[in-house]
């Protein structure tokens, strides 16, 4: 069943169905917050807050709109409330050293680990609005139309912002010593 249909049932009173949407989206939402806050515990709390608000304000969901876009709108408001209370710290994410392992030779692995750490540093050092748009596009794989709806901007503006954010990330990464192609 599509997200939108499930959400319509939640809206109509089958609040228990929200578990389906939690199972589908809580991981991505957690990663979105983790990229913005660099704090695991806070990110888990923010996910709880998003789903609680979805429950409480379920009647404000417009059935013909994308559930994912609406959920990230709620998520963004939750994050802004959180950041307003506690100035968001931009540092090296605590999970920066967790890299995916593979079967490649040891020296190549070491090089890739170093580059991944640099990339993490570069991403964490981006201004929050650029990091956010890049995370939405790259990690959450949101469509430009969905990002436009979450950020309440034009699709053309999203396109330009994602490009500029990626270019700035590249500039920072290479300035820190990242290997060029």
């Amino acid at each position, binding site marked *: 069943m599509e997200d939108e249909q499930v959400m319509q049932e939640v809206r109509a*009173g089958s*609040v*228990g169905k*929200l*578990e389906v949407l*939690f*199972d589908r989206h*809580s*991981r991505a939402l*957690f*990663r979105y917050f*983790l990229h913005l806050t660099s704090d*695991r515990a806070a*990110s*888990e709390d923010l*996910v*709880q*807050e998003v*789903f*609680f*608000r979805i*429950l*409480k304000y379920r009647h404000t969901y417009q059935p013909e709109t994308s559930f994912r876009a609406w959920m990230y709108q709620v998520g963004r408001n939750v994050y802004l*409330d959180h950041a307003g*209370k506690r100035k968001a710290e931009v540092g090296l994410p605590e*999970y920066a050293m*967790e*890299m*995916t392992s593979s079967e490649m030779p040891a020296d190549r692995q070491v090089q*890739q680990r170093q*580059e*991944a750490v640099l*990339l*993490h540093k570069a*991403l964490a050092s981006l201004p929050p609005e650029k990091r956010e748009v890049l995370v939405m*596009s*790259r*990690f959450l*794989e949101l469509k*430009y139309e969905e990002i436009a709806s979450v950020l309440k901007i034009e699709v053309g503006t999203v*396109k*330009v912002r*994602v*490009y500029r954010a*990626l*270019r700035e*990330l*590249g500039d920072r*990464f*290479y300035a820190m010593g*990242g*290997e*060029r*192609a």
Partner: protein
Amino acid sequence: MNCERVREQIPEVLAGRLEGAARERLIEHLDTCAACRAQVAELGVVWRGLEAMAQPEPSPAMKSRFLETLHAYEEGFQEAQRRLTYTPPKRSWFWQPAWQVVFATVVLAAGLAGGRYLMPHEAAPVSNPEIAQLKGQVDTLRQMVALSLLQDQSASSRLRGVTYSNQMTQPDRDVAQALLHAVSHDSNVNVRLSAVDALAKFASDPEVRRAMADSLAVQDSPLVQVALIDLLVQLHAREGVPVILKLSQDKDANEAVRQRAVSALEKLGGAQ
């Protein structure tokens, strides 16, 4: 096609989302422009590097916390639904109000007439005292559970405390105070919001309405502010007007809160 327009499409190309004619035009441009080719290559390294980053997993406790909150909410919601949707079963014509009035009048007349000729007896107690005592004990128990849960460390327990307070048949002042304290001072916004809803039950007490207005003045969460304003409007609580007026004029206040305050003033003004 100029270089800047081409470069704006690089993230879409790297994500494999650029298709059809747009993709053809881009490839055509890259064949002739070395600078753009170089940028696609450079940004391609970064884009693929992002993919290689670990995707951290949340702890299993996140799901169990969610389920705990969901069940507490579901319990409260179903209870509210039961109260709202309760309709008495259909009855025969005899139980229609008009016939009941006729029947009651006949019985009353017969009773009055009969009463003149019969010895008066001591009136039987209206209700069974044991049942009344039992009801009182259940209410006291709910009150104790609600009060103890409202002071718990865990936010989901405090939410359950709010749900329990909703089940009490007789509004109790201690519980109202605990809910007011939760609205103003609880660290968790969800608990504060639920406590606002639960306070509606105690709204006949002017002191509670005043305390709600005081809480609005010190509230830092825009969501709770909006919920409190809505409740004060719903109760036509004019005690809230000075604080709402101040919020409506506060340029630093959250825009949504300010607008809600302006609209609330119109409604409360109309309620005069």
